[in-house]
Structures are given as C-alpha cells and as structure tokens.
C-alpha cells in the first residue's frame, strides 16, 4: 500500500537533489535544469496532496506552475544567451561584476 508519505518523501528527495545542483554546479544551463527539478518536486507534492484531499485543485496549481516554468525557462535561457555573447563562457563565476 502506497501512502501519502511515500510521495512526500520522494518529492523531498527530488527537491534536495535540485537544491544540491543549484549550489554545486558551475554551469548556468545545469543550474536552470536543477530549478526545473525543484519545480517538478513541488508539482508532485501538489498532485499527491490533491489526490489525498480529494479535490482537483492540486492539479490546477500544477498547471499554473508548468506555465510559470515555461515563462521562466524562456526568459532564463534568453539571459543565458545574452550573457554568453558577452563572456563566451557559462560559468557563473564569470558574471560577478554588475557592469563591464
């Protein structure tokens, strides 16, 4: 029997993996991918809790999170392209100054 706890623990593990990726990786694209992992972990929590409560609201919030993730990916990747044009690298350590 799979309980709500199984899904909550799985989503906590996925969220932790995403957080570790954001802190440890030195590649802007991988950092954006780790943020997507974190968003998906939260989506899983919403769907599992919605199933537990017995309403459809969890799935609707998931729908909105997906929309926000699409917008975030578009703007974030545009920023990555603009930064890459300036510095020819994807390492976040190269972008420590506000002005160049």
């Amino acid at each position, binding site marked *: 029997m799979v309980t709500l706890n199984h899904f909550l623990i799985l989503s906590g593990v996925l969220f932790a993996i995403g957080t570790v990726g954001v802190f440890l990786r030195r590649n802007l694209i991988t950092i954006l991918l780790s943020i997507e992992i974190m968003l998906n972990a939260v989506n899983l929590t919403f769907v599992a809790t919605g199933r537990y409560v017995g309403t459809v609201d969890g799935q609707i919030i998931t*729908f909105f999170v997906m*929309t926000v993730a699409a917008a975030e990916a*578009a703007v974030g990747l545009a920023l990555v392209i603009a930064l890459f044009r300036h510095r020819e690298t994807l390492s976040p350590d190269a972008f420590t100054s506000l002005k160049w």
Partner: protein
Amino acid sequence: MEMNQLPFFLFAAIAVLASLGVVGQRNPMHSVLLLIVSFGALAGLYVLLDAPFSAVTQIIVYAGAIMVLFLFVVMLLNAHTEDDSPGARREPWVYRAFVVVSLLLGLEVAWALSGLGLASFSTDPGTVSSISSVATIGVALFTKHSFAFEVTSILILVSMVGAVVIARKEP
C-alpha cells in the same frame, strides 16, 4: 484503485536516478536528455495518482516544449562541457554550516512526516472518477480559478516579449 507498490518504486527509482544524473553530468546535453527521462517517470507517478491530465500535460509541455527549448540553446551555444577553472573557494566553516543546516531541515521534515502518520489515499470510486476527469478540471479552471487563468496570459505575453528583447543582438 488500489495503489501498487511495484510501479511506484519503479517510477520513483527512475526519477531519482535520472535527477542524480542531471546534477552529476558535466555535459549539458546529457543532462537535458536525462531530465526528459525523469519527467517521463514523474508522468507515470501522476497516472498512479489518478491525474491523467497532469501526466499528459507533463509530457507535452515539459518533456516536449520546455526541454526542446533547452536543447536548442545547448546546441546554439555549443558549450559541451563545464569550465575546469576552479571556482571561488569557500571557507571550511561555510561547508560545516551547510551540513548543520541541512541536517536540521531533514530532522524537521522527518518530524513533520511522523506526525502525519500512515495517511492512505481514499479509494472511493466517486472521488477517484471526479478528480481524474478532465471535465472537472476544466470547469474548476474556468470558474473558480478564471482570474488566475487570465493573469497567466499576461505573464506569458510579458515573458515572450522579454525573451525576445533580452536575447536580441545589440545593433
């Protein structure tokens, strides 16, 4: 629907291993492809949770649209590997503080989950068919949540214009 253990653990293992691969890879192309695998496993978990609409949206929007956007950018920038230059070294106490804070957060989560107990999902057929139907989701989306739905269109418009302006070549 009685929830089986085997599919849950199968999909959970695929999701966790693929996510670990995403974080552990040095080649961004492999990371993106592994993330698609992870999203597929999550879609399977949504099916187990009687949420077929979320599962299909996950495949079409996430694995189909967003990840293709990432793939295009990885190919466009042609950055196959991460820079080997050492990053900014931090003091040892920073790492120790990270470990302590993570352990405290883990303990807090374990404490919260133990308070929840073994909360099993309801198997009432009426509830299950109501939350798994796309019609119910559509009605709730266009009545109860119609304001948020309309605001989303503004968000997408703004992000579309913003992406074009930011990524434009400067004249």
